[in-house]
């Protein structure tokens, strides 16, 4: 028991914040705690959660990916067009994943090989990808996405929850394993902490960086395809501003934007927390203008909780050795 406690102590702050948030909304409006509403919160976290999986990896390397909203749009219109053209849904999903890998890998190439700063490189590519999404359809949406694809990405599993939730859980698990149990994951943290030292110890930093961005593209592509399935229409305007929500989810979940620190579970709960907050404010009927303030305050409080937790830890550590 104690070992489990220790293992997830990093995510403790965010879990406590989430429980408090849900309890407060539940007291204010009991309807908030109904299973269907709670399920809705998870379901509505899927898109942001998937984006955040990839962005967490990239942020851990000390980078950032601002293209996710635009990458989503490219995947949405390209795969949407292919599906409407009669492509098999399984092939479409695989192709979508590949497209995400390539688009993300291109970001990684600019950053690793051409030495552009991640913020600037992805700021530029954000605009390029958005333009591509508009060009593919001439600005028009792709209509009537086939039902079989929609069922695959967002259908009911055993009549209980949508397959999109399964996709999020799978992606989070894979991300968790990559970060915690692979050499690649260790390299990502090492690069975020001290890139030069990592390079000098013989790690192929450039290659690993490109792969990190490519994987971010993959999770982004999955998010795009889930959105396509949920709405049944592929809009080139989709995903505008979503990158910031994803970064917020990672940050709230304890990922440091300075790199070298972060966890997949934290990000997962971060995405859920943001959506739980959004739904709570809606259920309570809070005025829109106040919602902006509440969201900002909660982000700051959640990140601060994380800092406090770190402080307590190092304080305990010091006391242990002072004796």
């Amino acid at each position, binding site marked *: 028991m104690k070992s489990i406690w220790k293992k997830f102590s990093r995510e403790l702050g965010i879990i406590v914040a989430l429980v408090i948030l849900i309890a407060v909304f539940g007291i204010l409006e009991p*309807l908030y705690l*109904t299973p*269907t*509403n709670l399920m*809705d919160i998870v*379901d*509505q976290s899927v*898109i942001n959660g998937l984006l955040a999986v990839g962005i967490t990896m990239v942020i851990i390397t*000390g980078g*950032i990916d601002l293209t996710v909203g635009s990458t989503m749009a490219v995947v949405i219109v390209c795969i949407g067009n292919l599906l409407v053209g009669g492509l098999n849904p399984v092939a479409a999903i695989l192709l979508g994943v590949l497209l995400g890998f390539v688009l993300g890998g291109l970001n990684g190439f600019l950053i690793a090989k051409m030495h552009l*700063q991640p*913020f600037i490189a992805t700021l530029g590519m954000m605009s390029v990808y958005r333009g591509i999404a*508009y060009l593919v359809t001439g*600005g*028009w*949406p792709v*209509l009537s996405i086939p039902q079989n694809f929609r069922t695959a990405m967002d259908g009911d599993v055993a009549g209980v929850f949508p397959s999109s939730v399964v996709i999020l859980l799978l992606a989070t698990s894979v991300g968790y394993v990559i970060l915690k149990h692979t050499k690649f994951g260790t390299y990502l943290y090492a690069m975020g902490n001290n890139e030069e030292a990592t390079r000098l110890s013989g790690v192929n930093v450039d290659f690993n960086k490109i792969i990190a961005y490519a994987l971010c593209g993959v999770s982004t592509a999955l998010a795009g395809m889930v*959105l396509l399935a*949920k*709405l*049944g*229409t592929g*809009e*080139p*305007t*989709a995903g*505008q*501003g*979503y990158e*910031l*929500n994803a*970064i*917020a989810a990672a*940050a709230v979940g304890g990922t*440091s*934007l*300075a*790199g070298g620190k972060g966890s997949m579970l934290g990000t997962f709960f971060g995405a859920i927390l943001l959506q739980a907050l*959004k*739904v709570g404010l*809606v*259920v309570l*009927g809070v*005025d*829109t*203008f106040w*919602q*902006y*303030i509440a*969201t*900002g305050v909660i*982000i*700051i409080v959640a990140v601060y909780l994380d800092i406090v937790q770190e402080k307590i830890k190092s304080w305990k550590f010091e006391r242990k050795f002072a004796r």
Partner: protein
Amino acid sequence: MKRSVLAVVLTVVMAASVFSGCTPKQGSTSSESAGGAGAVQETETAAFNPDEEDGIEIGELRSALGAVPKLEGSVKLGAVAKAFENEYWRTLKEGYGVFQDKLQANGYDVTIDVSSAQGEGDEQGQLSIVKDMINKKYNGLLLSPISDGNLVPGVDDAKKAGIPVVNVNDGLIANSDVFVGPKAIQNGELAAEWISEKLGGTGQVAIVIGMPKAFAARQRTAGFEQYMAANATGIEIVAKQNADWDRSKAKDLADTWIKQYPDLKAIFCNNDTMALGVVEAVKSSGKDILVVGVDGIGEAYDSIRRGELDATIDSFPLYKSQIAGEVTLRLMGGQEIPRVIWTPQALIDATNVEKPAEEIIGWEEPVFEN
């Protein structure tokens, strides 16, 4: 060190965008701040409110003024739309092209160049386009500003250069010569009237709003609420929330509401994109909830034909821009033009979705000089 600076910058950007609705836009306008929290509930309080002017319709104007004057020399008009990413503005552009072809077919030497800003956040870029047109000595400008204030400096320059400025819906320019557009408040009223009729005057309804930067969008909600308050007291507006004009966010809102208010009977959305997202939520709930949007985009028409979306308010941009072009030529020809020209708008539902637009709005071609 560099990295920590980056972290700080990012955090600031993130926090700022959370506060501004996740779309980094700057330059809030005077009327927006004047409207404040009440802006979405009350009628606009800005200095110029076309809804309160004694506007006239194009038919009236034509019978008073006769044929469209033929101007001397070649005339170059510049039209600036908000953003072609949006179907509404592409259609408006198409209308300018149609009008130009009609003019040229009738021996008028008029060209209309249409451009737009790079997205609806590009307020400065739109101003640059206008200034460029003034420098290139265009003879008349037809402007649809992104916000109520971003083109004001350009319009001042145009006035100094003696170039007439016609303000084409939406976005307001207080110092323009003429405003051409639909009566904005009527938009929400039409939706409210239709919904209250369908529901027999009682029931719970909800509104999905988009964060409004422009006057016309603010008036949609105001018109809806005012109509219900005055004419349908049995209708209860149980919820009103913002979805940032985003289809997915609107769907999420509707998902939550449908569970929270089991007796919800109708949802009014500030545009069609959000309405189509709400339709997906209603479909998967299996409930019978009316959904009404605004704009009349092609996808909305398709959805009405399929029996999914219930209605949309179309303001016929294809004809709006033709009217705007005609009014500009009349203004330049020295005709006396009122401050506000109303353009047609109508509610489209299953009963009239197949009817040609010309028939719905009673469109007639303008009379040209020989």
